């Protein structure tokens, strides 16, 4: 695990930053350290219901933690993570934000469909701590409630949490090959999450699981999805652990899955940690060294000091310009955010319009009073899917924009210190992957807003609609009574008239609802973008400030350097060389942190 080594390195660099009086760099290292302190690697376990998700988690950690039932079992997402002592924490988010600890044995009362039907208690999630080796390195297994079709509202919510996960396991049992919704889900997951794999469960029960696995591989290949497949049997694994039967454990297929979690998921997160820490430390070291290198250059060649100073003055001007509003990256950012805002709004409107049309079609085809319940659910699901797709897309575009800005910043930043960059690789742009974490926070904030919007607006409007329609339902018996008096023809006309009115009222209600959604979600998107903009601006401005500070102190160092006394000069050169040597050692350690041979796509 990288964390101890990386942590040590960051601490060392922090001490150096304080020693060289560069609090600005210390702040940056502080962020790095903070990021390292949260080692959690989230693995989302998703799938349609009754595929054996909870049992898979139980078999992975060898403890009957997640409730398993023949009927619906899991009602609340359950995160299983490492703890010295077994513990259960319930987490509420939103209005009644709180956490509370409960005895381990009581977990089923809160997370199972039997104990907490339809999550009546409004839990956001449950966290289960267990002393298990597999979890020790920060692995967090998140068992999600099964969803009725991945396209439903639950499915959309799951989709929105994907970008915050380090890996996704799609669970599907060996009774049948992948269905179209499952393949769609995998394709989307591939775009949002670095590590996606399929787990085929219950291989003990289905003799044809090899055929099914092959068929699934075929489907994946046909869809252009590159995900590993792991056929496993949770029953055999649990039995194997109970009877300590190594052969049975092999048959259960869990070895490959555990290896995947360790070597791909954990190692990748680890790799990412090492890489970004290394880059941060290198960038900091480079800037700390710049001052000393400037002074050293001046000390070594006093006759060229004046030229060096004037070079550095120009660099100072460039660094100041980088901070300016007129800098190219600033333009890229503000233009990009504007474009993005327009695009996202348009995308949302477009998606909702399509839903509106479909809804009109449905309402035309049937009596709203008959289909209202199902229709409401359908509408809610469609809107949820559309808004979450919009959010996910917005997140992706925002990330792309960040990369773009980073590139432009790096292009200009590289030009700032040409004289002092002594052939080192350009670490000014080393911040690109630093953005990954803020990106996650942004999305989770957006997602919260979105979930809030869905619950609040969806609920309110649905109820509003239901009562409007209840008004009509009361008219029905009256019309039946009237019909008995006036004969069948009048009844039919009256009924047709009422039906038409019900339909037009229902359509108006739908349009109103969609309007509200557009308004609320549009605001959320804009808020998210503003936050992105602010975050990126602050981030790059502080980088520009760091650069400026570096150049400033370089200029000062170069100016004061020129001393007449040869001995003093020699001593100073020795000092500087020693300091630079220390920094070089720091850089070396930073480079050593990244496993050299491995290339990981970031």
């Amino acid at each position, binding site marked *: 695990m990288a964390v101890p080594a990386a942590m040590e390195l960051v601490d060392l660099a922090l001490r150096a930053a304080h020693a060289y009086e560069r609090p600005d760099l210390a702040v940056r290292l502080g962020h790095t350290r903070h990021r390292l302190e949260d080692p959690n690697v989230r693995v989302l376990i998703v799938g*349609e219901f009754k595929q054996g998700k909870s049992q898979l988690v139980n078999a992975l950690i060898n403890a009957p933690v997640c409730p398993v039932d023949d009927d619906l079992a899991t009602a609340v997402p359950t995160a299983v993570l490492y703890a010295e002592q077994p513990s259960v924490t319930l987490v509420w988010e939103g209005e009644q934000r709180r956490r509370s600890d409960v005895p381990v044995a009581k977990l089923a009362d809160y997370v199972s469909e039997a104990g907490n039907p339809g999550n009546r208690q409004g839990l956001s999630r449950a966290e289960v701590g267990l002393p298990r080796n597999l979890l020790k390195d920060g692995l967090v297994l998140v068992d999600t409630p099964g969803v009725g*079709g991945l396209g439903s509202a639950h499915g959309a919510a799951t989709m929105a949490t994907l970008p915050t996960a380090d890996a996704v396991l799609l669970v599907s049992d060996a009774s049948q*090959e992948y269905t179209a919704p499952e393949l769609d889900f995998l394709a989307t997951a591939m775009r949002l999450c670095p590590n996606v794999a399929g787990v085929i469960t219950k*291989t003990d*029960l289905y*003799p044809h699981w090899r055929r099914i696995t092959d068929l699934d591989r075929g489907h994946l290949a046909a869809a252009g999805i590159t995900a590993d497949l792991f056929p496993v049997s949770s029953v055999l694994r649990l039995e194997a652990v109970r009877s300590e039967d190594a052969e049975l454990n092999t048959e259960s297929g869990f070895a490959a899955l555990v290896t995947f979690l360790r070597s791909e998921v954990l190692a990748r997160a680890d790799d990412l940690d090492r890489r970004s820490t290394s880059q941060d430390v290198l960038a900091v070291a480079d800037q700390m060294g710049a001052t000393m290198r400037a002074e050293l250059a001046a000390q070594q060649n006093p006759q060229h000091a004046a030229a060096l100073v004037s070079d550095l003055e120009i660099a100072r001007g460039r660094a100041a310009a980088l901070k300016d509003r007129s800098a190219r990256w600033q333009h890229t950012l503000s233009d990009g955010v504007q474009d993005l805002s327009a695009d996202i709004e348009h995308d949302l409107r477009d998606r909702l319009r399509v839903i509106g049309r479909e809804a009109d079609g449905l309402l035309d*085809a049937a009596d709203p009073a008959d289909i209202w319940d199902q229709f409401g659910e359908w509408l809610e699901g469609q809107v949820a899917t559309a808004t979450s797709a919009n959010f996910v897309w917005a997140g992706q575009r925002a990330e792309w924009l960040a990369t773009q800005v980073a590139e432009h910043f790096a292009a200009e930043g590289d030009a700032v210190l040409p004289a002092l960059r002594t052939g080192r690789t350009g670490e000014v742009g080393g911040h690109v992957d630093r953005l990954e974490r803020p990106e996650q926070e942004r999305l989770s904030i957006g997602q919260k807003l979105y979930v809030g919007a869905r619950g609040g607006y969806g609920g309110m409007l649905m109820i509003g609609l239901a009562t409007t329609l209840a008004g009509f339902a009361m008219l029905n018996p009256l019309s*039946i009574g009237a019909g008995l008096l006036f004969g069948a023809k009048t009844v039919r006309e009256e009924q047709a008239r009422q039906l038409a009115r019900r339909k037009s009222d229902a359509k108006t209600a739908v349009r109103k609802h969609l309007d509200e959604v557009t308004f609320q979600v549009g605001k959320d998107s804009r808020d998210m973008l503003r936050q992105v903009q602010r975050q990126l601006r602050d981030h790059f401005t502080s980088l520009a400030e760091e650069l400026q500070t570096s150049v400033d102190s370089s200029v000062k160092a170069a100016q004061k350097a020129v001393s007449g006394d040869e001995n003093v000069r020699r001593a100073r050169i020795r000092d500087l060389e020693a300091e630079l040597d220390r920094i070089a050692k720091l850089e070396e350690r930073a480079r050593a942190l990244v496993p050299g041979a491995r290339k990981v796509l970031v």
Partner: protein
Amino acid sequence: MTPGLGIAVRGVLRDAVDAYRDSPQATAWLRQHLARFDEPLRVAIAGKVKAGKSTLLNALVGEEIAPTDAGECTRVVTWYQDGPSPKVLMIPRDGPPRPLTVRRRDGALTIDLGGTPAERVDRLVVDWPSQSLRATSLIDTPGIASMSADTSARAGAFLVPEDAPAPADAVLYLMRHLHVSDVRFLESFHDQGVAKAAPVNTVAILSRADEIGVGRLDAMASARQIAGRYRRDEKLRSLCQTVVAVAGLLAQSGRTMRQAEFTALSTLATAQAADTEPLLLSADRFVRASETAPLDPETRAALLDRYGLFGVRLGITLIRRGIDDPGALSAELVKRSGLDELRTVLTTQFTERRDLLKSRSALLALELVLAREPIPASVPLAREVERITAGAHEFTELRLLTALRTRVVKLPQDVKAEAERLLGGDGGTPAARLGLDPSADPAELRAAVLEALGGWQRRAESPLSDRSQVGTARTLVRTCEGLLAALPR
């Protein structure tokens, strides 16, 4: 109840044929429906991919005729009907019907489309001499939400055609668990036309029920519990008549059990527990070659293929408990599979309502013609359709049943259950409607009817009842009166 409904519908159909004699298209369409009236009831088996549709069809027929496979298998709508000799007819979308060669492998029919791509085939019609197909023709459909979008489109178009009444009179909807897409599909059976009785012709089946309890011996009990929960589910109640749990594979293999298989199961059951227990741990272990295990791996593989791990486990347990002849074991397996229950439901829900379902299909077809090709004569015909629909008490009952189930008409819970039962929700026989034992004697029936009648008359006249309740009570009074009149004196 009133035998008049069928006669009246036939009459109006014949009148329509007469009135439309100038339009060959309409005449052909109407004649077809007139002929359909005398054909066996058409029951379609629908559901998502791999829900076990073909397996259930085989179980109902009692022979392995529909091909089944671990992968997605049925790609063309296939009709199975009784016939004097085995015959397969392919009906392409365009072009004349073409007979296909009948070939069987291990009892199952292998159908070779002869190079015609599946999307060009409208349907296959299989004639098969079988007692089970005499009263009802069965229609096997491709899975919905199938991987190949076109396959599921074919199923959708067949079951819920956009431009014509569905060719099936009734639908068995198979689901492994209740998914949103299942609900959506069931909803599409809602029709706008004549009887407005959506759930009347649909029975939902919790298929592959043995797998719900992951093959444990008590799996069926827990599947039945889940089916019971679904039955009580308000939403599902408004979409189908009832929900039954069936283990299709067990039913199919139970009905077609061979002597050799019984012998093999007995060998396993009587062998040392230490030798058989490891085998039963997983499907892989069951077919693995081993020196100590009874039977050779090929026999075991064949057994597993036919019965599934659950069937094998159950079979062995039953033999150990003392069942010692193939007939008894077969009967017990079929009983445990839930097939008997399904058959009872089919009888009460479909066969007993045959005339009603047929009339409904025919009136839907006639309404379509009247709307599509209006001629002067269609006005009196439409009036006649209206008269039958409004006048036939069967349709009134159906409408009310639907209204109760979809909660359009609200009644107190206990009264509602009684109303649904009286309207024929649990079956159409007088005993079933009155909630009595089928063997109840006329005196008991009479007493029960009179009690129900009194209750509903009071409700119809109570000043506390609102309009819809009065309407409901009046319909039920008439139902009770009908029951009373039909009782032998």
